[in-house]
């Protein structure tokens, strides 16, 4: 998992409430045997004019010029500005996989669906909850100015606007630690690698037959 410390990124506004995970990544793409490569199909039904299926050459498909992420000014955005209850619906981990693969590192919204919120942290994405009024203002500022950027300092737990205003946000201390260090569950477990190895040695001593068979 990529560590997340400080980010100064372009902001893209997605002005709809209740964006569900099926909209984020439609179900036909779940047949994939991969965890990466979902980026080109992020928001597939909104982003393209035709119906998407796995295996299509997405570069040949016609983009929907009215969909906000297709506006040239938002190309390369790393921060998604969203409305309430973002990520509701099915628990598919493919949704954060797709957002991350597309290039987003943080999502700002007044509220998130629970499972999606949890899944984000597992995949190096930072979901930030801000007051609805502040989010309203950020929407206005983003659409009012080309190249609008925000700075996110996870260590200090602040979002900093171009005018220098610092907006504080909450995040669970343990999750913050994992994100800053780039630790996923696996990374966390591997911190105890020596303990695992020591256990393994004792275990092998007590029940050596568990280590025969196809052992190299």
């Amino acid at each position, binding site marked *: 998992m990529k560590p997340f410390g400080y980010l100064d990124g372009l902001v893209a506004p997605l002005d709809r409430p209740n964006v569900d995970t099926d909209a984020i990544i439609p179900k036909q793409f779940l047949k994939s045997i991969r965890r990466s490569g979902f980026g080109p199909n992020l928001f597939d039904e909104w982003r393209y004019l035709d119906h998407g299926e796995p295996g299509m050459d997405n570069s040949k498909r016609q983009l929907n010029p009215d969909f906000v992420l297709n506006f040239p000014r938002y190309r390369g955005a790393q921060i998604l500005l969203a409305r309430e209850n973002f990520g509701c619906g099915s628990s598919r981990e493919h949704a954060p996989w797709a957002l991350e693969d597309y290039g987003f590192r943080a999502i700002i919204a007044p509220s998130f669906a629970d499972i999606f919120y949890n899944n984000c942290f597992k995949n190096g994405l930072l979901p930030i909850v801000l007051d609805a009024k502040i989010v309203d203002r950020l929407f206005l500022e983003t659409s009012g100015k080309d190249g609008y950027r925000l700075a996110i300092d996870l260590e200090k737990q602040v979002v900093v606007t171009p005018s220098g205003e610092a907006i504080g946000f909450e995040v669970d201390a343990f999750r913050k630690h994992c994100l800053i260090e780039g630790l996923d569950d*696996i990374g966390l477990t591997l911190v105890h690698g020596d303990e*695992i190895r020591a256990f393994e040695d004792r275990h092998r001593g007590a029940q050596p037959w568990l280590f025969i068979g196809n052992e190299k």
Partner: protein
Amino acid sequence: MKARNLYDKLWDSHVVREEKDGTALLYIDRHLVHEVTSPQAFEGLRLAGRKPWRTGSVLAVADHNVPTTGREGGIRDAVSRLQVETLDSNCADYGILEFRMNDLRQGIVHVVGPEQGATLPGMTVVCGDSHTSTHGAFAALAFGIGTSEVEHVLATQCLLGKKSKSMRIAVEGKLGRDVTAKDIALYIIGKIGTAGGTGHAIEFSGSAVSALSMEGRMTLCNMAIEAGARAGMVAVDEKTIEYFRGRPFSPKGELWEAACNYWRTLKSDEGAHFDATVTIDAAEIRPQVTWGTSPEMVVAIDGAVPDPKNFSDPVKRQGMERALAYMGLSPNQKIEEIAVDKIFIGSCTNSRIEDLRAAANVVKGRHVAKNIKLAMVVPGSGLVKSQAEKEGLDRVFLEAGFEWREPGCSMCLAMNDDRLSPGERCASTSNRNFEGRQGQGGRTHLVSPELAAAAAIAGHFVDPGRLS
């Protein structure tokens, strides 16, 4: 020392470390892998630049997607083929032992593990598949995991988790004629419900369970998950030990003796605590047939489809009405009057040699009824298949009008070409009768191999003892 139950012993002997809140890091001895739930895990490993912690603990086999006929030509369906090829290349890349599709040892992962001795008493066994509970028959702590956890185990040889509660289900007494492990499992689920074991690890015990063969115990533990429990288990006895003598992965020589001594301790201590206990009188159990779309919707072969009118709980009544509509059955219809279209003998529940012998015994010298569109036997593994052929069971089935197929999951979940058409009714030895499980609109009745075989001959459900 405090009296401990079998689950306590298995758990305690695998805890690497434990947090204050009870979250434990549990060491995993055996990791079984199949093609459907592993590709993203391997990819995650690769993207993070990690390697499997201990490749020797991993055994892989493709089973869900493989065709059961015409394998020489490879897999025709492109999506299935890609999944299987992905498993092949992941195993090749990381040096993981895999039984490929045309290997004699290939088969359903839960049949293959014990058959090879890759599952042993006292192990923790995981697989990205809920029916991993099967392996608990050998006094192993075995449970299914998700794709993220598959990756976690590959990378760390451990899993994070909290201990479940414990439940003992004691089945006491002698089983009646034609009553099998499958009937015990279905009967228990009918009694405690599909959520009856939720949050628990179940130990099956009692004289009727001790009397079961190892294969019967596997059938029983296989369906623990259908009772809501992630793990089911049975204590070690001499049958358990005999089962492993001479298997490819079993210890040999001095190690064998040492292992046996340890294995004999794998049972609940006298007076050990259980969070819940259920006692069942074996004599009450009749051969079972499910009538609905959940394994708990089950009655005895000589019974009738229940009438929702007799149930006061509106949620339950609605569920029954919906199930009856889907199944195309009416209240009070006698089970023995329900005609079937297809017969499936197979799956990780009932595809081992004993199951095939039991079914062959019923069909021997008889012929499949005219109304049966397809009766198929899908052995659990290549080795089961070849053993059956040595015993001439294939000829018994073929002469009776059955098809004799190559090993795999097949019509248990219809991921390959073996499936029901809408409205078709199947007597199936598998474990799930959910809507659409065996094909969109397909109607599944879960039964033992004996009952499936008898239904094939009669064309409808019938007590095998009443076959003319």
